């Protein structure tokens, strides 16, 4: 009997996992003992970190897009469609509301979605670089900017790429220098957390740079509403901030499909932090942003988790006991301006230790972004 492995979502986690499964189980797939199917709504893989550079006119959104068909191993069956229901009891998916697909092993990698409309005025008043359109609009707004108050505000937690708000703030400060606008501008950062970043070592690193570079930082600032007419940002505790250009990290939410399937309460799959098994169903794994695990929503997390789940599923279809465990590994780059970067690396048992930023690490980030497609293919 053929073991049917179905992966939901063609982001970093789903794509890397499918390719790793195809590589590990190549003989089994060739013998029809296993089939691997990836279901994605659009059939296009998007590398979101490119958008940060789109905002500064350093990249084009098309550089972050590739058809999944070009990235997937030929042993993986790609199906384009929207999964509208998961019946974990019957191990059956409904696709596009009509057709059904049975599975033996399911991996949910459906990610997170943006919900900017949860904060009044955010859609009308704020820019973002968390979508292709948003990054392009921000690029145009920055190009037209001739000085004033730039406010970067983290309007919701958790969010994808926890380093991005600090990166954007330091980059825009440097960019204003390059444009000859720094003296005519103020750079302001707000975060809802007690410190400038949830991780104390990153907060220390950021605070030192914010202080040295004259960046105003407001913490514990829970964005309640934006007034686009008055160009004012309002916090729940009554504080207000004026802005000329507002950039926010929009609030994120899980997907309804997960909640409807009973896999997690708020659209995030309740997941074992080490085995990555869903807590509320058998033979279901979750990886990447869609889990409720206390880890950053970062591509590296999805990538490392994909390796673990590929090992576990490969063991299961070979009737071995799966032993691979996720150790909480995270690796993120952190731009300190337009030309220098550092990185953070940590796991469940350690905190990040940040090094001084350097041009070489900035180049390494640029080189990795260019070679990301090798990651998607499961090579690095």
């Amino acid at each position, binding site marked *: 009997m053929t073991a049917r492995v179905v992966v939901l979502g063609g982001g970093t986690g789903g794509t890397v996992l499918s390719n790793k499964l195809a*590589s590990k189980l190549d003989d089994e797939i060739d013998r029809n003992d296993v089939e691997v199917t990836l279901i994605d709504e659009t059939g296009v893989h998007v590398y979101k970190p490119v958008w940060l550079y789109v905002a500064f006119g350093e990249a084009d959104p098309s550089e972050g897009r590739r058809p999944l068909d070009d990235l997937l191993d030929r042993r993986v069956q790609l199906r384009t469609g929207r999964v509208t229901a998961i019946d974990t009891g019957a191990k059956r998916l409904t696709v596009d509301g009509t057709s059904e697909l049975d599975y033996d092993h399911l991996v949910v990698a459906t990610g997170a979605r943006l919900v900017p409309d949860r904060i009044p005025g955010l859609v009308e008043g704020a820019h973002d670089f968390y979508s292709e359109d948003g990054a392009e609009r921000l690029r145009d707004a920055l190009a037209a900017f001739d000085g004033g108050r730039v406010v970067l505000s983290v309007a919701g937690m958790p969010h994808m790429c926890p380093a991005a708000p600090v990166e954007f703030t330091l980059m825009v400060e440097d960019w204003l220098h390059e444009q000859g606008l720094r003296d005519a501008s103020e750079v302001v950062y707000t975060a809802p957390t007690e410190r400038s970043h949830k991780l104390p070592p990153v907060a220390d690193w950021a605070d030192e740079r914010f202080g040295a570079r004259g960046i105003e930082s407001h913490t514990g600032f829970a964005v309640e509403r934006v007034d686009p007419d008055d160009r004012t940002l309002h916090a729940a505790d009554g504080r207000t901030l004026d802005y000329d250009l507002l950039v926010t990290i929009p609030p994120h939410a899980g997907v309804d499909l997960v909640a409807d399937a009973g896999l997690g309460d708020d659209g995030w799959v309740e997941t074992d932090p080490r085995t990555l098994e869903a807590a509320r169903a058998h033979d279901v794994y979750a990886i990447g942003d869609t889990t409720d695990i206390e880890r950053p929503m970062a591509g590296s997390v999805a990538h490392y988790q994909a*390796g673990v789940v590929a090992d576990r599923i490969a063991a299961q279809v070979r009737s071995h006991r799966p032993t691979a465990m996720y150790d909480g590994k995270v*690796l993120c780059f952190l731009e300190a301006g337009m030309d220098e970067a*550092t*990185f953070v*690396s940590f796991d469940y048992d350690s905190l990040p230790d940040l090094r*001084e930023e*350097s041009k070489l690490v900035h180049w390494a980030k640029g080189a990795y972004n260019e070679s990301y497609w090798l990651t998607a293919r499961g*090579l*690095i």
Partner: protein
Amino acid sequence: MSDESAASEAAPSDAPDDDLAAAIAEDPEAVAAFVRRLDDVNELLDVLALATEAADDEMVSSVAGTAGSLGELADEAAEPETIRGARTLLRALGDAGDPDTTYRGVGAVGLLRALRDPEVKRGLAFLVALARGIGRELDRGER
């Protein structure tokens, strides 16, 4: 005698501190220049640390495996006659893949007409030689 004074008396004269002091005394400029370069060395070490921390066993073996296969392919491709043949094929592929090239369906009549083209005739000679080579390799593989 305290432990501290015992340690100090027992310290050999060629301790690292002494070596460093002697090097500084001998050529302070060179040592200062070396220290200035340590920043660059540290940055290089950061990139090395980044690669070490990002990688895992599977990544290293997958990259090494791919590099090994590419090495074998490169070794095979490095024969002068292979380079000549590959260059011919690659340039022809570039011409065929030109975005201005239109690919109209070719029927039997179109094929016969194309066969009158001297360039197509030369190309066919190449393809026949290629087919002969492939056949030879397949025979070898089966033996």
